[in-house]
């Protein structure tokens, strides 16, 4: 192994708002080795994008960031404070969800790719332009010479995302962060972009953080997966382990609730009642407890910390799936007909309407 490239320790990001402090990321830690891919999976509000933006030093100035991020042997937040320029965009780069908004509509594609080469690596205009053409070829764009002189609106969504990837690769980064890189694209194009990212990562020995809401996207592509919910790490494991021995009820629920392409039509889906919490007032205890089939009285008051479940596998749960305490908690909830958080267990199995929780503010 090439050793640890990125080490994130106890990352916390808070935003002060009129309604109170939003704890968007609350104590996230992970390590990433050179050349490896970590998948960060979560729904809206889980803190996955904020984590990425914190690493990229892209958060607004009013964000309150705590924790340590070490890249190689350099302290990333110290560099941010010292306004070091040639790190972001060179060593660590990012690809965003929407390729249209990440490109400047009034500049030619070639100029946009050449820009970072000129600014960061001080290349001449001619050199940078020639290299931009090579990059377009590497990301699989046909007729790169012609594309260099086109504007973003002249390209399809898939081609635009390839251009954005070419920009991110221009300075030869050691870490690429891809935040939902294919969500805005059509299915037939999605797979091509993901495969391209994977190939480029392997060829260049880059590390990658792949952020997505879809466990299926990271399944075959990430070495390791971190599942986030409401700013917390719920479970982290090597990819194969996560799917074969998942421990967190949220991971299990996410997998069960998604329709599968190979299951017959009209298979009833196991719902997850309620909705992701607002990260302003996360109750004491586990943030997933109000929606969880396994929740016990302890889950409501005592927030579980990450505990080890074997090599590289950690899970934050008092009643993990597939353990005696988990089976016991679920059996108890099933016989009681309701969970400790007051969730009607019947909604998971029988054909009764799943009641949505009351609207925000209704509880008082």
């Amino acid at each position, binding site marked *: 192994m090439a050793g640890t490239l990125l080490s994130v320790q106890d990352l916390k990001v808070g935003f002060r708002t009129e309604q109170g402090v939003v704890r968007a990321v609350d104590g996230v830690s992970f390590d990433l080795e050179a050349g490896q891919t970590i998948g960060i999976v979560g729904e809206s509000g889980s803190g996955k994008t904020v984590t990425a933006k914190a690493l990229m030093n892209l958060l607004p100035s009013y964000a309150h960031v705590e924790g340590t991020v070490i890249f190689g042997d350099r302290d990333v937040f110290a560099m941010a404070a010292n306004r070091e320029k040639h790190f972001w965009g060179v060593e660590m780069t990012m690809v965003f969800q929407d390729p249209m908004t990440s490109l400047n509509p009034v500049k030619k594609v070639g100029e946009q790719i050449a820009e970072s080469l000129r600014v960061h690596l001080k290349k001449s205009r001619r050199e940078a332009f020639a290299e931009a053409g090579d990059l377009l070829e590497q990301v699989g764009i046909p007729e790169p010479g012609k594309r260099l002189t086109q504007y973003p609106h002249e390209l*399809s969504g898939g081609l635009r995302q390839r251009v954005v990837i070419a920009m991110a690769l221009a300075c030869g980064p050691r870490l690429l962060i891809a935040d939902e890189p294919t969500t805005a694209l059509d299915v037939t194009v999605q797979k091509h972009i993901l495969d391209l990212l994977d190939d480029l990562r392997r060829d260049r020995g880059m590390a990658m953080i792949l952020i997505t809401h879809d466990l299926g996207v990271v399944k075959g592509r990430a070495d390791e997966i971190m599942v986030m919910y409401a700013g917390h790490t719920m479970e982290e494991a090597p990819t194969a382990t996560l799917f074969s021995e998942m421990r967190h009820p949220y991971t299990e629920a996410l997998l069960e609730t998604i329709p599968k392409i190979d299951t017959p039509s*009209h298979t009833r889906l196991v719902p997850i009642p309620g909705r992701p919490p607002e990260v302003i007032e996360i109750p004491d205890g586990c943030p997933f407890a109000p929606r969880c089939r396994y929740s016990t009285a302890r889950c409501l008051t005592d927030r579980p910390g990450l505990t080890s479940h074997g090599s590289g596998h950690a899970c934050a749960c008092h009643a993990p799936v597939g353990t005696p305490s988990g089976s016991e908690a679920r059996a108890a909830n099933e016989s009681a007909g309701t969970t400790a958080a007051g969730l009607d267990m019947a909604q998971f199995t029988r054909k009764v309407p799943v009641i949505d929780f009351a609207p925000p503010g209704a509880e008082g």
Partner: protein
Amino acid sequence: MAGSGTAHLRDHDDVVLRVENLVMEFPTGRHQVVHAVSDISFDIRRGETLGIVGESGCGKSTTARAIVQLPTPTSGRVVLDPGTDQEAELTALGGEDLRQVRPRLQMIFQDPISSLNPRRQVRDIVGEGLNIWAEGSDDQQIRARVDEVLEAVGIDPSVAANRRPHEFSGGQCQRISIARAVILEPEILICDEPVSALDVSVQAQILNLLEEMKDRYGLTLVFISHDLSVVRNVSDRVIVMYLGKACEVGDADTLYSVPAHPYTRVLLASAPQPASTVDESESAIGDEIPSPINPPSGCRFRTRCPRADDRCATEEPILRAVGDDHFVACHYPTMPGGTDG
């Protein structure tokens, strides 16, 4: 043109909607025409869910909107309850006659928040259809009915009825949209990407709810989505569309287990978790979707199709049967036995 034909239309008494040779074209500024939907035909039996799946720009939403005459199609026929005394040919109606038929068809849309009027209370949004159509019922009856429907979609009326849409999450707004659509007890509910804007943990709630609503109110559904797994889960019958044409039509499980059209196979192989019935390598095709202003001659998929030859450029494939309730518009489909035809 690729994918026309009517071989897949069924001659049953319980067909609630028949769409024949639907064409939808939009003029653009420069004397050009966008061929959004080109000669699509299908029918739906009572209580059935018809899934329409395809990528952006394939004409699936345009087809849905054409059913409710938003706007009136360029040509073709849309007939509600054909062969009964309730028969209404929507494409031949206009003005007040069309208005009278419209409550029998309702629609829900992709973005649940923008499809609700932000300035009105939930009770008024859901009850509006009744206020207009339920002649003779008093306010009390309408109130009771609104409460009943809200409860059916899993929203507590005592808490929610007097609130406005911004106080609800996306999933809750989608429930309210469903309540508004079913309160008039339509025959057909058209759902245009109803779960695409929702979090994954909320999707299943809404998909299950649609199934419950279907049973409870005896609905027939048209379900449009780009997500193949979602479409299979809810549908009895599926149409795969590409560039304004139907590629493959059939019983949902048949179509997914023995996909015959090369495009269907590409879609199934491109899913994040590819279907087991196709090989993952089949997803390798070009990314460029041709422009609907100037669609390819012959089969419209031929520019990206691995099997295309000269015949595909000149002769448009017509939908033909390849199995029981399974139709494909391709000269070289994968036949259900595993051989290529």
